[in-house]
């Protein structure tokens, strides 16, 4: 799922500086699951904003709303507050939600309350970790499920490089070498042969350098939407 992390408060306060009437909008999807952008976090953030404004003697009205997903048009109907009634909406959805909602409400600034950080999973209570980069050309089949695009500093697909150092990356001694991890995983699984194969260059057009990416399920596409 998509993981997001709340932006530093100073940045949020700076974004909101020109605005007097603000809606904090939570999203009930991924960012609720990673405890960053749910209704409760929206309530907390709104409370912080009101207190911060009071502290500075600023007039600021902050309301809160939350919908199931900010990345689907239909859920917008469930909004209890109309975004158009506000100077700005501080959305704590992922970037997809912020972008999509901005499209629906072009006259209202939708400001991101989160930094969308990665595709990840919960590894322990309260801890989320990156597992995927969304490169568009998955290689996990032969890397033991460890993504070298997300984890290798160089994004190599024929690792490891000469910079691997006792399991750590030359970039930082704090960082695991992805290819070292891949080696250990495959060795433990008796699949080291995978590494004998030289992998041809990836199709980088599938990554974001190929422009806006789309998924089209033809069986559901209405002709009008195609235009």
């Amino acid at each position, binding site marked *: 799922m998509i993981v997001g992390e709340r932006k530093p408060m100073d940045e949020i306060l700076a974004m909101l500086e020109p605005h007097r009437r603000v809606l904090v909008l939570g999203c009930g999807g991924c960012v*609720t*699951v990673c405890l960053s952008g*749910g209704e*409760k976090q929206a309530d907390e953030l709104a409370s912080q904003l009101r207190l911060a404004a009071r502290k500075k003697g600023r007039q600021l009205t902050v309301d809160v709303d939350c919908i*199931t997903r900010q990345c689907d048009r239909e859920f917008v109907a469930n909004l209890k507050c109309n975004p158009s009634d506000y100077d700005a909406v501080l959305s704590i959805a992922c970037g997809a939600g912020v972008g999509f909602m901005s499209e629906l409400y072009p006259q209202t600034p939708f400001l991101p309350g989160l930094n969308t950080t990665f595709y990840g999973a919960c590894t322990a*209570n309260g801890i989320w970790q990156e597992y995927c980069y969304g490169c568009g050309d998955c290689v996990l089949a032969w890397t033991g499920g460890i993504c070298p695009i997300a984890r290798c500093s160089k994004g190599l697909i024929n690792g490891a490089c000469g910079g691997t150092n006792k399991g750590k990356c030359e970039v930082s001694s704090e960082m695991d070498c992805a290819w070292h991890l891949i080696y250990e995983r495959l060795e433990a699984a008796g699949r080291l042969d995978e590494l004998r194969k030289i992998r041809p260059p990836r199709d980088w057009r599938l990554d974001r350098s190929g422009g806006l990416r789309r998924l089209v399920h033809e069986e559901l596409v209405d002709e009008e939407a195609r235009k």
Partner: protein
Amino acid sequence: MRQVNLTSKDITENPSAATELTDREWAPCRYNCPVHADVRLYLEHIAQGRWRESIDTIRRHLPFAGVCGRVCHHPCEANCRRKDVDSAVAIRELKRFVAELQGASGATVHRAARQDKARVAIVGGGPAGMSGSLELAKLGYRPTVFERSPRAGGIPATAIPEYRLPRGVIQIDVDWICAHGVDLVTGTAIGRDKSVDQLRKEGFQAVLIATGLSSGKDIPIPGAPPDGVLGALEFLTDLGMGRRPRIGQDVLVIGGGNVAVDAARSAVRIGAGRVRMMCLETREEMPAFEWEQREAEEEGISFIHRRGPAEAITANGRMAGIKARRVTRVFDENKRFDPQYDDSDLIEAACDTLIIAIGQSPDYGFLNGSALRLDARGRLEYGPATCQTNVPDVFACGEIVTPPGSVVEACASGQRAARAMDMYLSGGHIVLDDSLPPFIGQIPTATAEKVRKVIRQPVAAQPPEVRRANSQEVDHTYVESAALREARRCMSCGAGAEVLVDKCAACLTCLRVCPFDIPVVTDVARIDSDRCQSCGICIAECPANAIVSRSLEAGWIARRTAAALEALRGAGPRIVVYLCGHTASAAQWRGEEQSSDGTAEVCLPSLSALSALDLLKAFENGADTVLVVTPQDSVERYPQAVKRLRKRLAQARKMLKEIGLKRTRIQLFELTRPSRTAVRETIAAAADQLRAGPIKPIGATR
């Protein structure tokens, strides 16, 4: 597992939707109580030291709270789910404690605004009749109770011995009932002093017969001299009325029920040298409560089991004993009472007084001067569905028409008949809805094992040698501290968490933080009410605000905080204190709402439900500083609650820091021994320090 699909829409349309679930699914204590008293709620009140709210909650359903606090057979306790953890909560003792604490004036009287409906007559001032009359008074009728004996209260007032039930306790209940506009006429027997038909002529538009079982059953003991045999009920009534029945030195009581034990124990108290009981049953089969048997034995009473009287032995025309035959069986194959004897196996039991306690029977004197009839089996004609007799405006309730039972069952019967009378007098059909909501099931072993064990508070009893010599009550009631401790053992069954299915993101947080491993996430999170321990940790942690409490309305903490701040006087720093009401009910002691230290105090059933957002909201509501006073982990009732609380406070402090507010605006106090005094001292010291220090209000607007 019972699945309720509650949604946020339900809550928006009706803020009480979640708390109403506690009414839609009862704890077994409430379900099994014949009047369905809200046990969980009144125990919570007691646990927080809110006596008045507690007794009001009890009396909402149970008019004879005082009497039942002494003599109830307490099916609530028998069905208490705590017994699968350690032992049942001492519900009856707690009821006794609050019912007697402040007497009749301790409970609120909710008198109907108008009592201008019909006049109704109630025949018999026992638990059934008085409960029926109260219900009718509350419904706007003008009830008059006609009681044969000089005082109301029925068997409890006349024949239950003082050592079990002091008269003053019954008077508390009777006075409280009468305060609702119930007229009481004592010393008037219907059928003797005036008839049912006369009552009608006097303007009573309906009559409720509630005369109970007021006579003792008799068995012929061939050869027994009349002065050597007493009926237990007459014996006990004489004692109850302050007369001194003549008994000898060697008393034998025939019977194995509670009345028999009462008679035997009373005989001891008025000086009998030896008292024995003879009954058909074995010890296990005896209908008398186990504790009654035990206490009787402690007082020197011995039992002769499985024997039935055959004939009297006399000496010089006086009672000298009985011959008793062996009982071969008490019940038949269908468990019906059908004793069989072996007449060849006889023993002799010496005695100079024989007390017969083999059950009670009705006195049908009230039939005189009425069209009321008995049926073919010699019982009052009666339709259980409508509570009516053969005369449509004459109703009946209590033991005259039901099987013999306890006080609380009589109360329920009276209330039911009152509802029927109301339907009749309102001109409608009598359709009584006896359906009940489902109840919370047994606590699974895996959950029971995770609940912290707390020993049941014992009740001190007079030593047997002391109580043999007088008629004072046997058991002492709880002292205040013990009552608080005992009430806090209640597990609040069915008052826990409920998921709003439309909001739940299946994020698993509830499952991950629950100290009892209750939630499961299938389509959405599901929290089994049979297992939930009502700690509220998941509610505080849910990122989607998708979990609500069945016992604490959403937003209650913020509203309560705002109200407490509103009530705060003076110019000093505005300090909000969150307290665990179960360990530190200081603020609302005796139901008083104001805070004593000039701080705005909010008592919660547990601090485990206090969220970081609640703390922020306190500042929004005008607090300058928030103090949180919790018992430390070893004395907190929910495992992990203190750990969670610490983390939430840290989170809230971080959020304050982010907006330039000092972290010290939130302070946590973990008390090793969270007594009321310790809590008060902690708050006072912290408040003093804050008043001395430079705590500025947030912002300049206020």
